[in-house]
């Protein structure tokens, strides 16, 4: 295995991680900061991808598609928050689980109702397609480089918002004691609608960006949702920094595990068995990673509380 | 001199640069109430945490009834007969007052692993719980959900739960806090009678109660024991007056 290949795989892992971060960031905002388990986050990812696909198909512009993904997901998020989620802050996590599970059903089948059962088309814009030659002779898809860049910018922006602005402080205060922050004069309901929409928009952005290199189809959100949960739990709930580190860890483990574990097993068994044992282990690898992290640090890498 | 029932030796606990306990050695003898007073943030709750096992000391040891319990769990220490009340009420909010009290009684009869028989059919247990509720004056609130109690009522319940344990020694973190003047008076009288059954290490800011009850007083400031002595000695100590009591005590 050549050094170039290894570097390329690490890049792939980073890119996968950065994309996961976009998804996880929204989730950790809503989930950690607002104390809400939002299983429907994956649906917002799907909404973003479908909006982007529909609008870019109609207008031929990928950027317009992205904008509409942000808008559609944010709008969907705001509406959902005002109609449903708002009534759930006071209830325990279990009611939230059931309600957002119901939302998944509604979103998924509703989308199928609107768009039919077949995947939609969404492609990379011409100006980002094809590979770029990196130093060292590595050929790497330009689009994926762009994804890394977008992810990093969003990460920084979010961190500043949550940790450094008064808005962020108030959001976190609301998570600690909603009634109290309201009694101090902060309109927490409006704030929460805003945050929910922001988280939704991030999910929608992730869905649209990733949709261009994947299949835009009903149910695309659920596998990513699980991964995003893994990410924020590894990182520690509510911590943007944790989500970032967790996302990179998961991205790298997933990518590198799939490649290197089978290779590793080739030292012990015949190639066919090594392939299949290695591949099975690779699919478990992020879950093994997560349980090891949690056994070692029960509140995640950067988490303060349970 | 009688053997102390509870003793700490050189307990030290640091939180980063802050030394919350700085070589604290303190003891509790049978039949006495030993009050620990000191400014806010002096390290009183930290000391109690180390005695009960919720805070792991960096140095030093805790001895209870002659055993070194420094490495034992909270539950194990409680099992040996160390009763505790919390500074901030720790109660099962969804349960009734009686259920909360029964929980305490349960441990003393060590029957939590009985899976079949209903607790409410255990007359012994219920009687003990009721007795404790009676003592703190919550009998008429027996069936109220804990979440429906006022703050002061919760403090009363907090004490009741500790009473059901029939411990060998008590560690109480501000039991008077939140009680009204009348409640404080009643609890003072009650603790007064309790000391013969189980000595009490009492952390309290209510000086009326402390002066009325304490056999000995230790003053803690910045993690260190500043002085230990009788009520009169402590009241007269000029250092204590400036560090803690203020002029009108």
């Amino acid at each position, binding site marked *: 295995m050549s050094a170039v290949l290894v570097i390329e795989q690490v890049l792939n892992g980073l890119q996968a991680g950065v994309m996961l971060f976009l998804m996880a960031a929204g989730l950790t905002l809503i989930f950690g900061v607002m104390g809400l388990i939002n299983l429907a986050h994956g649906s917002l990812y799907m909404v973003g991808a479908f909006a982007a696909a529909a609008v870019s198909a109609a207008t031929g512009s990928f950027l317009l598609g992205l904008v509409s993904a942000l808008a559609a997901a944010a709008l969907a998020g705001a509406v959902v928050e005002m109609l449903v989620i708002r009534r759930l802050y006071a209830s325990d996590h279990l009611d939230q689980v059931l309600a957002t599970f119901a939302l998944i059903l509604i979103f998924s089948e509703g989308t199928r109702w609107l768009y039919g059962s077949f995947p939609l088309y969404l492609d990379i814009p011409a100006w980002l397609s094809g590979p770029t030659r990196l130093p060292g002779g590595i050929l790497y898809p330009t689009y994926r480089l762009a994804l890394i860049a977008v992810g990093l910018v969003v990460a920084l922006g979010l961190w500043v918002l949550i940790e450094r602005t*008064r808005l962020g*402080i*108030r959001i*976190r*205060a609301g*998570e*600690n*004691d909603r*009634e*109290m*922050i*309201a*009694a*101090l*004069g*902060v*309109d*927490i*309901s409006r704030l929460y609608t805003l945050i929910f929409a922001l988280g939704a928009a991030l999910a929608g952005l992730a869905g649209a960006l990733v949709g261009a290199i994947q299949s835009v189809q009903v149910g695309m959100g659920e596998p990513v949702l699980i991964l995003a949960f893994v990410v924020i739990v590894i990182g520690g709930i509510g911590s943007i920094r944790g989500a970032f580190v967790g996302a990179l860890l998961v991205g790298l483990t997933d990518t590198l595990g799939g490649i290197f574990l089978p290779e590793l097993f080739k030292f012990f068994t015949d190639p066919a068995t090594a392939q299949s044992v290695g591949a099975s282990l690779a699919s478990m690898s992020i879950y093994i990673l997560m349980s090891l992290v949690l056994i070692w640090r029960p509140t995640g890498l950067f988490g*303060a*509380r349970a | 001199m009688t053997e102390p029932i509870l003793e700490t030796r050189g307990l030290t606990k640091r*939180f980063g640069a802050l030394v919350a306990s700085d070589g604290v050695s303190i003891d509790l003898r049978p039949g006495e109430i030993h009050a620990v*007073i*000191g*400014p*806010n*943030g*002096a390290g009183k*709750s930290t000391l109690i945490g180390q005695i009960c096992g919720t805070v792991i000391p960096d140095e030093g040891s805790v001895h209870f009834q002659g055993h070194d319990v420094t490495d034992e769990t909270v539950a194990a220490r409680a099992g040996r007969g160390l009763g505790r009340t919390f*500074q*901030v009420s720790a109660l099962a909010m969804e349960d009734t007052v009686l259920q909360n009290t029964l929980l305490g009684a349960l441990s003393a009869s060590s029957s939590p692993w009985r899976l079949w028989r209903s607790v409410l059919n255990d007359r012994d247990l219920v009687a003990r719980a009721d007795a404790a509720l009676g003592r703190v004056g919550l009998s008429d609130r027996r069936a109220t959900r804990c979440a*429906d*109690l*006022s*703050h*002061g*009522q919760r403090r*009363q319940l907090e004490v009741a739960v500790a009473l059901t344990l029939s411990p060998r020694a008590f560690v109480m973190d*501000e039991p008077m*806090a*939140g*009680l*009204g*003047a*009348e*409640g*404080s*008076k009643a609890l003072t009288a009650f603790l007064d009678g309790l000391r013969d059954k189980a000595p009490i290490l009492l952390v309290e*800011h209510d*000086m009326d109660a402390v002066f009325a009850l304490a056999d000995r007083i230790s003053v803690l400031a910045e993690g260190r024991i500043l002085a230990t002595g009788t009520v009169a000695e402590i009241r007269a100590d000029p250092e204590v007056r400036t*560090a*803690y*009591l*203020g002029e*009108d*005590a």
Partner: protein
Amino acid sequence: MSLLALSGLTAFYGSSQALFGVDLTVGEGEVVALMGRNGMGKTTTVRAICRMIVSKGGLTFAGRDLHGLPSHAVARLGIGLVPEGRRCFADLTVRENLVAAARPGPWDEARVGDLFPRLAERRGQRARTLSGGEQQMLAIGRALMTNPRLVILDEATEGLAPLVRAEIWAAVARLKIETGMAILVIDKSVRDLARVSDRAVILERGATVWSGGINELTPAISETYVGV
């Protein structure tokens, strides 16, 4: 005209009634003590004022009917709450606790720091790890950061060392004199209340049973209603 006026206020927790008719006024710059035994409805009254619980009856602040307003709007009218049990934002630092509440006015971080130097020293520490007394100071500082016209102190000296308690009472007195802030105060120490308050209102089983000037509060009355 009174800044805060409650008349015949009733309130329920679910189906059980907690307030049966509370009458209470606080005038501009006035310090009023709210007294009563454990569980008599003092905190419930406060919660009703801050619109944390549904209530009926007369409830006005600065001439505005508070019924119909959400909690945050009441706070913005100028009511600062130091709640029972402190309720600091446990995962936020001291500074963040203050910033979260801040609204423009004379009270800012620096001024709160002057009032409670101990807090200033612990600006970066998470509220969860503060000692009880430090948390209490933080709760008061936080309420002041909203620059209120009326501060409500519900058991604000609970768990404080005598010296600090004295400091807080001194601070209350200073607030009264220097800023003319109106204060509604609940505390278990009748002695301390008598020293800072202008008037007192006593609750018994959710209803006002006595009110009058602090000088009229005879030992007999306080023996009857408060037990000392």
